């Protein structure tokens, strides 16, 4: 066989093994989003925005994605059908990719030499800025998983659609890419809400119960933090309170079609006005971080 013929042989999987290993083969940077925004991570802080505020804002958006991705990843090898294994892993990968870019941006803007991994693995609970909805455990109950993703992706899609115009180039780039991803996640969750809500008696009951489980965490999504308020004025952030109408309309439409009832449960209370955005979390986050950080913390100075 001539060398050329071998090049063309699609069955020769050995061939690709002998090729050099590139550090970030695009196939294996899958989901990182880095291929699109690498240069922008080091862009200067937009005029009129405070660097510390911007770093904090990137943590908020990044931590939401990182912690929610962790929860979705818990489904790997536990999904109700193989096709859904693939769909759930896609969602987890998309969110992880968003988190990596946003944490990298936060680290760069902060200027203290922390990279994405230092921020993901070496912060304590009180330093995380995600909302409670992201950290909520679902105990591998598909009803809760669908309810959380329905609310989370509807809300995050509303945020990211507005953030495409952010004056911060990294936030804008993550938003532009993320809108396509979140549209997909919302579509997936809405379709499952329909199937479960309007499926069998049992699935209806469990989907409704899933909604009741996530509902106390909905109120927090629309609360504007001081950091966000200042960055809205600087044209960098979007006001989450302004997304409420859109999110409610989408949820009402899905719930009605799915024969589900919008819960009327009160929102989870704050700790003296502080919640996730101020580092005041539920007990669940500590357990998430225990798992997420255990190996990295056990090997200081290691390279992976």
């Amino acid at each position: 066989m001539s060398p050329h013929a071998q090049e063309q042989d699609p069955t020769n999987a050995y061939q690709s093994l002998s090729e050099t290993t590139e550090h970030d083969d695009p196939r294996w940077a899958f989901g990182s989003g880095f291929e699109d925004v690498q240069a922008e991570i080091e862009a200067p802080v937009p005029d009129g925005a405070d660097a510390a505020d911007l770093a904090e804002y990137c943590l908020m958006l990044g931590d939401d994605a990182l912690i929610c991705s962790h929860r979705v990843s818990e489904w790997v090898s536990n999904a109700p059908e193989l096709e859904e294994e693939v769909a759930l892993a896609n969602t987890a990968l998309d969110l992880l990719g968003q988190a990596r870019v946003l944490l990298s941006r936060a680290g760069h803007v902060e200027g203290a030499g922390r990279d994405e991994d230092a921020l993901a693995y070496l912060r304590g609970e009180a330093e995380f800025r995600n909302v409670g909805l992201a950290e909520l455990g679902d105990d591998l109950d598909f009803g809760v998983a669908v309810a959380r993703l329905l609310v989370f992706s509807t809300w995050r899609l509303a945020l990211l659609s507005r953030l495409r115009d952010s004056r911060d180039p990294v936030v804008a780039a993550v938003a532009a890419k993320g809108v396509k991803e979140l549209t997909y996640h919302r579509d997936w969750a809405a379709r499952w809400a329909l199937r479960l809500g309007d499926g069998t008696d049992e699935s209806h009951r469990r989907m409704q119960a899933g909604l009741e489980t996530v509902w106390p965490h909905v109120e927090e999504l629309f609360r504007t933090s001081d950091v966000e308020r200042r960055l809205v004025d600087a044209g960098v952030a979007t006001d989450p309170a302004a997304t409420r109408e859109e999110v409610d309309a989408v949820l009402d439409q899905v719930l009605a079609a799915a024969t589900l009832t919008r819960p009327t449960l009160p929102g989870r209370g704050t700790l003296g006005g502080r919640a996730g955005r101020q580092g005041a979390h539920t007990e669940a986050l500590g357990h998430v971080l225990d798992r997420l950080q255990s190996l990295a913390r056990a090997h200081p100075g290691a390279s992976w």
Partner: protein
Amino acid sequence: MPEETQALEAQFDATVAADRRIEPRDWMPEGYRKTLIRQIAQHAHSEIIGMQPEGNWILRAPSLRRKAILLAKVQDEAGHGMYLYAAAETLGVDREDLTERLIDSRQKYSSIFNYPALSYADIGVIGWLVDGAAICNQVPLCRCSYGPYARAMIRICKEESFHQRQGYELLLAMVNGTDTQREMVQESVNRWWWPSLMMFGPPDGDSPNTQQSMAWGIKRHTNDELRQRFVDMSVPQAAALGVTLPDPDLRWNADRGAHDYGEPDWAEFKAVISGSGPANAQRVAHRRRAHDNGAWVREAAQAYADKQAARTKEAAA
């Protein structure tokens, strides 16, 4: 044998002999069909069960880049399982039945996944050795006489080569890291080397079905041939990593132009295959739990689809 069957069988034999592909609607001997169903199903089960040892580390992956790589890899394995189940379904079995056979322990999967993944070095070693051994086994299957299986394998082999590379790259990073990391890598290689050799199946003298499978063009090489190829491939890769393969009998044999190596513990292999490996019970129980916990979801989707179909019909009437 009726005359008609003889003619069909002659046609089948001629197709296989000419290295052409048998396709789903072609006549085929019942033994060929049953052998393929068993082999493809075991292969599919292996992909799905194989998600567990690696999935065990996704939540704890030590960097976000490694986490993304591992998630993407385990996702590929779900996809590979689907391709393979689909290939099996062209032979007249149903994926649900095959899953039932797996979780009732009536069908097997690769013995390797009955070993636990105990450190992050295992993620690298699974990529390097386990996926490497799988590639040795699978590349010849890209030319398997059964078309749907061969086509599934072409797609799978392409992705597997990425899997092996990411594993090896992780190990390179670790052996260039701290002393503890280097120890983790060596310890992991010590645990996985022999089970990897066992992935090629029993020695040729103890593999009664090999000849028939080769005659049918399902298998292209014997177990020992593939094992030898794997050993010869792995030795220089181990040297480049600076790890020792745990086999005192491993040495180059200039006369054979190949490495001599020690005998795997075939008693252990038989024990693992027959259910008493370190993780058999856990793997099957995990799969059964996921399948059972998903039953209400699958039923709901079907019920919804049925309702929608009825509504569409009603609207049209």
